[in-house]
């Protein structure tokens, strides 16, 4: 086995293992903390794909900021850990059926796709290339996203200041 394959399997195991903790743990703080290794595993996969810039952003935004936001929200909520509250309902059978159907669909799609490698070479310096693509071909998407973010920011301020 090549080093790359070993790295891939280790990273995949870390990502999936901590993902499993995220969804199965009864303690919400444990779930939120387990997001960090899950995000870092995904970061490793990005690095294996030579997408260093995306990897850096993944750590900065997801592992560093989103997790902190989630932890912050849980800790500010009454009964924080969620250990005392009921966490399952009676829809287990329906849920299993939907999950199995979804899994079957994904497996069929994943095995039938050719996965041919794209042509062309990687740009030597990805941040520059990403910036070019944001401000040239994808400018409309980029500006649209910034408007969405601006609106959510204004919405947050509006909700937070309602009592005045």
């Amino acid at each position, binding site marked *: 086995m*090549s*080093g*790359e394959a*070993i*790295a891939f399997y280790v990273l995949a195991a870390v990502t999936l293992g901590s993902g499993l903790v995220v969804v199965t743990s009864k*303690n919400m*703080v*444990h779930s939120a*903390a387990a997001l*960090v290794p899950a995000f870092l595993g995904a970061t490793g996969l990005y690095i294996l794909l030579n997408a*260093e*810039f995306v*990897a*850096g*952003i993944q*750590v*900065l935004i997801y*592992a*560093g*900021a989103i*997790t*902190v*936001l989630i*932890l*912050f929200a849980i*800790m*500010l909520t009454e009964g924080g850990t969620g250990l005392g509250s009921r966490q399952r309902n009676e829809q287990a059978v329906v849920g299993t059926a939907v999950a199995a159907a979804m899994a079957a669909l994904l497996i069929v799609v994943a095995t039938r796709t050719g996965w041919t490698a794209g042509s062309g070479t990687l740009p030597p*310096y*990805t*941040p520059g290339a990403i910036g070019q693509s944001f401000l040239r071909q994808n400018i409309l998407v980029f500006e649209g996203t910034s408007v969405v973010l601006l609106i959510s920011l204004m919405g947050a301020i509006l909700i937070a200041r309602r009592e005045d």
Partner: protein
Amino acid sequence: MGWIWDVLRAIVGTIIIFSAVAFIAVMFGVLLERKISAWMQSRLGPKHVGPQGLLQTVADTIKLLQKENIVPSRADRLIFASAVIVVPLAALLDYVVIPFGTTRSGPLIFRDLNIGVLYFAATSSLVVVGILMAGWGSNNKYALLGGMRSAAQMVTYEIPIGLALVTVALMAGSLSTVTIVNGQARLWYIVTQPVAFLIFLVAATAEVNRVPFDLVEAESELVAGYFSEYSGMRFALFQLGEYGEMFAMAAMAVTLFLGGWRGPVLPPVLWFVIKLYALIFVFMWVRWTYPRFRIDQMLNFSWKILIPVSVLNLVVTAFFAVVVHR
């Protein structure tokens, strides 16, 4: 089988970074802090262990190693124990992209990543996860308050730090730390970017939770903040994370604004160390000179002053870099 060598090199590199940070940054840093605070308050400071008290922190570390490890009975044991690993690890990761000097075969750096500055911002933002986990896991109201304050503070001050980093990256035209140092061959960026330097210095002080931004561990209100419940070596590891982070921030400021290893006559590594300790002295000088901010003052300062100023600075820099100098 080249990858085995890569793994071995990574392990050796980790050991080197850990021991260098533990001895040079933390042990010597704590001693320096005590000596400088003593000097500023007309005291003598540690004087008995070793010549002029030089071995005081070594003795303290050995003492901490022998202490009992106490876990509060109602603590969340898993979170409590893993927080100790996250904080120093995040601080140690910062050192991968810092160029310490040059040798004949190129710059002295663990990895010259082409996303160096972004990597630094990302790893230094991981510290706050560990602090929140420590605050929560201790199951202590003071620790939790410290963790909460830290989260608010670090999320707030990450923005001006990020904007200062982007401004410098814009000047150098690259995110790589080596290219940034090479871009300062003629003129240090502190001359062309004094505002960004000040913003970085202030926000870095806040990021590493030092006075006047040390609300996270304000002794008079919160005992010791998020690490109130930690004892023995776990306490020492938090100190390692904190001082390691401070030295990393100072090293980054040297790299970004003070020309990194560049300087006349003396060897490059020595220049780097001189600049690093000059900045560390500034951090300590501020700590023993100013009183602590209130939490609302601190948050207002970042949102209402630092962030607008750094955005303005970025816009002006971008204008000059793209329009005037082209």
